Structures are given as structure tokens and as C-alpha cells.
């Protein structure tokens, strides 16, 4: 029992409620939420250290021992993601502090972000499959609000698509939960793992697992990503950055958790399907990334490629591949937020999102140009930046297990990432400077500082991989040996 596990969810919710009453004080709200995220990051780091020393932490609500009550379970994997999510949100809020317009500042923007992060953290920490559904909904409802805030025509149109698709996928989630409960009679993840292992994963359970796969794929943008580029490229840029960094990652987390802990008996069916879907996602994302001239669309398709790449790691499921996928997941949260913030800054400076209407920004804003250059290299996986280690480990895993097609696709997709971003770089940063020094829109350092923090972070993760490796190895070990997780949750309750 450890009550602190609840705090990464509880603090954002409480502060969010408080902020509703401070509606007209935009700046105050911003500072409150920034401090909240800093506190959440600190707490999750503390918990991460605690998990290293004392093993997996657990909180049973109301003292109901699992499998009867709802519990929160914190292992290295979930805490790494909670920590990264909190840091990324912290930086995004710093960007929001000075950049969003008055309307957003006073129209419940910050409470919505805090509720979103509460849902995200809850999804990472929960140990109960139905509770996962609830946390998903908390997150989705906030994301609906954030997506529509501002009320531009394009936003409303994309939001309708996004909301309807998510309602349908939540419906699938409930259907899968109902069948699973009917089949094995529990919804506690650890207990499910035991029951499914006892019953053997027959055709019925495998079918249910595929329904779960559809649900999480819709949320993660794995193959079913048709809704993603439109809705990620319409809202204000901070919102896009948060969505790109966090929302799809929750779906990915759920896929990792469910298919390593619960439905792990039939990898030749479930993991093979994930592999095929990941491969197709890589292809589709790559085509999308080079097909558009709208730089926000290009950034959104880069999210899709990363989803494909991370799930290649799950499809292969060797220790190396899983470790690589976790590294890449952390890297991607940081660097996707960075990419969206940079793209947003470019749009704010030039007033256009079209590639061909901007040129030679390097002369005007050298620091911005170099940040973009580093982001590009990091996304492509060039050492010593953060994308490198993940790509190497996933590729190593692919070679070990002979998944050469996935290996080829994932490496080719890196080239497409590089090409799609080089196009932005070549068109908008290189070339003739079309705006003179006198006419250029001044780049406010307040926009740049959050971006630079994230640049430092991608360098930091790349260079400090050694420091991270203990946590990541532990996370991968727990994912690969479900018994560790099950024992920690059901200690005493197990026959």
C-alpha cells in the first residue's frame, strides 16, 4: 500500500477544479498548472526510485484487496511514462503561458489540460481494465474540449469526426470488457493474467483480445489512423503538441500492457497481427509524411510513423526490442512535442502553414533553425540524440528474431521521416531570405525557451542513456515476465 501513487492523478484533478473558479485570471491559472506539473513530475520521480528499491508499488482503494477492489499499480514502465508525460506537459504549459490568446487563457484551457493529464496518468497507473476505460474517457472528454476550443470551422468539423470515432471505439472497448468479464469473470489486470493463463488462451479469448486490439489501435493510431492527421493539425499548436506527445502514447501503453500481461499465450496470432498492422502503419505514415505541403500535416504523419515503429518492438517482443520500444516511446513523447512546438512557432512567425510560402528563415531566426535541425536528426535516429538507442535496440531485436520485413520497413521509415522534415528544412529555413531583417516578426524568446528545454532534453536522453538504462531494463523485465507484476499485485491472495 502506498498512497502516493494516487497523487499524479489526484493533484491535477484538484488543481483543475480550483482553476475553474479562477477563470478570469489567465496568468495565475498558467502558473498554478505549471507548478502542478512540476510537483507531479517530482512525485513520479520519487515513485520511480521507490520502485527500484522496493519493487512494484500498489494502492488498493478502500482497502479492498485485489482482485476485488480497484487498485493502482505502479511499475517502472508506467512511472517512466508518467514522469515523461509530466515533464512534457510542464514544458508545453510554459509555451502556453505566453502564446495562447486571451480567449484560450480564460476559457478553461488550463483546467482541461490538467484533466487531460489526470486521465493520461490514470491510464498509465491503473491496474484494472475497467478503470482503464474510465481514465480513457476522462482523457478523451478533455481532449474533445481542447480540440474544439477556439471554435474555428475547420476545428469543429474535425472535432465531430474525432468525437464520433472515439465514441465508437469506446463502444468497442465496453463490448470487449463485457465479453472478457463473461468469459473469465474478472477485470483486475493481474487476476486476468492468471485466469487467462489457467484457462489457456483459446479461440474465444483470442477473439476478445483482437477486439481489444482494435480499440487500442484506434486510440494509438495503429493502422486505424485515418482520423489522426486531420484532428491533430487543427487545434492551437500547444494542444497539438500535447496530443502528439501524449494521446497516442496512452493507446500504445495499453497495447503493451494488455498484450504482454494478459493475452500473451498466442503471440503467433496476436503479435503477428500487431506486426502486420505496424508495418502497414509505417508505410501509410511514410506516404502521408511526404505527400503534403502543410507543415502541420507533415508533423501529424510523423506521429503515425512513430506509432508504427514502437509497435514493431511489441510485435517482435524480444528483450532488446521491448527495451528499444520503451526508449523510443520516451524519446518520442519529448521530441514530438518539440516538433509541434517548433512547427507552431514557424507558423506563428510566417503566418502560413504552406511549405512554399516561406523561405530562408535560417537568416532571420538562426536558433529556431538549429533547433529544428536537431529535432530532425533526433527523429531520424542520429546519435548522440535520443532517437538513436531505441532504433538500434529495436533493430537488434528484429535481427535476432528474423523479422527482416519489419526491420526493413522500420529503417526505411526513418529515411522517410528524414526526407519529410528535410523538405520543411530546405524550403522554409534554407533558400533565399524573403523577409528582411527590418520586417521580420520578432521571435519572442518566451516561445523559444520551451523549445530549447526540449532540445536539451533530447540531448540529455541521448547522452544519459546509461543513467536511464536501469529503469528501462526493469520496465522491460516486468513486461516480459508477467509473473513479477502478478505476484506484486496478488501477493497473499494467490493460492
Amino acid at each position: 500500500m502506498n498512497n502516493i501513487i494516487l497523487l499524479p492523478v489526484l493533484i491535477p484533478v484538484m488543481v483543475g477544479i480550483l482553476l475553474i473558479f479562477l477563470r478570469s485570471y489567465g496568468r495565475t491559472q498558467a502558473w498554478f498548472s505549471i507548478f502542478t506539473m512540476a510537483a507531479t513530475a517530482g512525485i513520479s520521480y520519487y515513485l520511480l526510485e521507490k520502485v527500484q528499491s522496493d519493487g512494484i508499488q500498489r494502492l488498493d482503494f478502500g482497502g479492498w484487496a485485489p482482485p476485488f477492489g480497484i487498485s493502482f499499480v505502479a511499475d517502472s514502465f508506467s512511472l517512466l511514462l508518467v514522469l515523461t508525460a509530466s515533464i512534457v506537459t510542464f514544458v508545453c504549459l510554459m509555451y502556453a503561458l505566453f502564446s495562447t490568446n486571451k480567449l484560450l487563457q480564460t476559457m478553461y484551457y488550463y483546467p482541461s489540460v490538467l484533466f487531460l493529464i489526470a486521465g493520461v496518468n490514470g491510464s498509465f497507473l491503473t491496474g484494472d481494465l475497467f478503470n482503464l476505460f474510465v481514465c480513457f474517457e476522462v482523457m478523451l472528454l478533455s481532449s474533445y474540449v481542447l480540440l474544439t476550443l477556439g471554435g474555428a470551422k475547420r476545428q469543429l468539423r474535425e472535432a465531430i469526426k474525432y468525437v464520433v470515432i472515439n465514441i465508437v471505439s469506446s463502444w468497442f472497448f465496453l463490448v470487449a470488457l463485457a465479453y472478457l468479464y463473461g468469459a473469465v469473470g474478472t477485470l483486475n489486470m493481474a487476476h486476468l493474467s492468471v485466469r487467462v493463463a489457467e484457462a489457456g488462451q483459446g479461440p474465444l479469448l483470442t477473439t476478445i483480445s483482437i477486439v481489444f486490439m482494435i480499440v487500442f489501435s484506434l486510440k494509438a493510431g495503429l493502422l486505424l489512423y485515418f482520423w489522426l492527421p486531420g484532428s491533430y493539425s487543427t487545434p492551437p499548436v500547444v494542444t497539438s503538441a500535447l496530443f502528439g506527445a501524449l494521446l497516442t502514447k496512452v493507446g500504445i501503453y495499453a497495447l503493451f500492457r494488455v498484450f504482454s500481461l494478459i493475452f500473451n499465450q498466442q503471440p503467433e496470432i496476436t503479435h503477428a497481427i500487431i506486426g502486420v498492422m505496424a508495418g502497414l502503419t509505417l508505410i501509410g505514415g511514410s506516404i502521408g509524411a511526404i505527400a503534403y505541403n502543410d507543415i502541420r500535416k507533415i508533423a501529424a504523419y510523423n506521429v503515425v510513423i512513430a506509432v508504427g515503429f514502437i509497435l514493431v518492438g511489441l510485435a517482435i517482443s524480444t528483450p532488446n526490442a521491448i527495451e528499444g520500444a520503451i526508449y523510443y516511446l520516451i524519446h518520442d513523447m519529448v521530441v514530438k512535442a518539440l516538433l509541434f512546438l517548433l512547427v507552431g512557432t514557424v507558423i506563428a512567425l510566417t503566418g502560413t502553414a504552406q511549405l512554399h510560402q516561406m523561405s530562408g528563415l535560417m537568416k532571420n531566426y538562426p536558433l529556431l533553425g538549429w533547433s529544428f535541425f536537431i529535432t530532425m536528426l533526433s527523429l531520424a535516429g542520429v546519435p548522440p540524440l535520443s532517437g538513436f538507442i531505441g532504433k538500434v535496440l529495436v533493430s537488434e531485436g528484429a535481427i535476432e528474431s528474423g523479422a527482416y520485413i519489419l526491420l526493413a520497413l522500420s529503417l526505411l521509415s526513418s529515411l522517410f521521416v528524414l526526407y519529410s522534415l528535410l523538405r520543411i528544412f530546405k524550403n522554409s529555413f534554407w533558400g533565399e531570405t524573403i523577409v528582411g531583417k527590418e520586417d521580420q516578426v520578432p521571435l519572442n524568446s518566451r516561445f523559444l525557451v520551451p523549445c530549447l528545454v526540449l532540445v536539451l532534453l533530447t540531448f540529455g536522453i541521448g547522452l544519459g542513456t546509461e543513467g536511464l538504462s536501469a529503469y528501462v531494463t526493469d520496465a522491460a523485465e516486468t513486461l516480459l515476465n508477467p509473473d513479477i507484476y502478478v505476484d506484486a499485485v496478488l501477493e497473499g491472495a494467490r493460492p
Partner: protein
Amino acid sequence: METIIIFLVGILTAVAIYLLLSKSLIRVILGTAILSHAVHLLILAMGGLKEGTVPLLGEEAESYVDALPQALILTAIVISFAVTAFILVLAYRAYQELGTDDLDEMRGVNDE
């Protein structure tokens, strides 16, 4: 009893999908509402129907019903209520801004 309910779930789902595939936004929203009713019934049926008395101490019965599905449905109803309320407002706002509730026409608006 369960079999009848499952058929009912199937019929509701079919109706909901028919509505979801229509062009009018309001019908799509009604479709999502019926969809959620269908799945609530499904969860109820999965827990078993009429298998015993209420699960309270002092009932002294042979068997008790499983209370968990009902708790799940209660949560799911609240969530679907919130989501339906949100999407109704969203649809009204979109109608005001875009001047149409036809999904085909909405797609054609290209004035951003």
C-alpha cells in the same frame, strides 16, 4: 432470458449502425446513444440475469446476483451521458458555424 437480451442487443446495434451511417449529424448522435444502450444491456446479460437475490447481508438467500456488472453499467451510463451532452452541443455549434448538419456538405467546406 439471456438469449432474448442478446438478440435485443443485436437489434439495437443494427439500428445504431444504420443511424451512424446516415448523413444527418443528429441521426449520427442518436445512433451513438442507442449504441451505448446496446452495450449496457450486453454487460448486464454477461453478468447473468435473475440468478439470485440482491447481494446484501441478511438476505439469507441461496445465491446472490453479481453486483459488478451493474456498477460497471452505472459508470458507463454516466460517461455516455456526458459524451452525448458534449456532442449535442458540438453539433449545434457546428451547425451555427458551418450552416449545415449534413456530413457530406460539411466535408465540402473549404474556406480555412
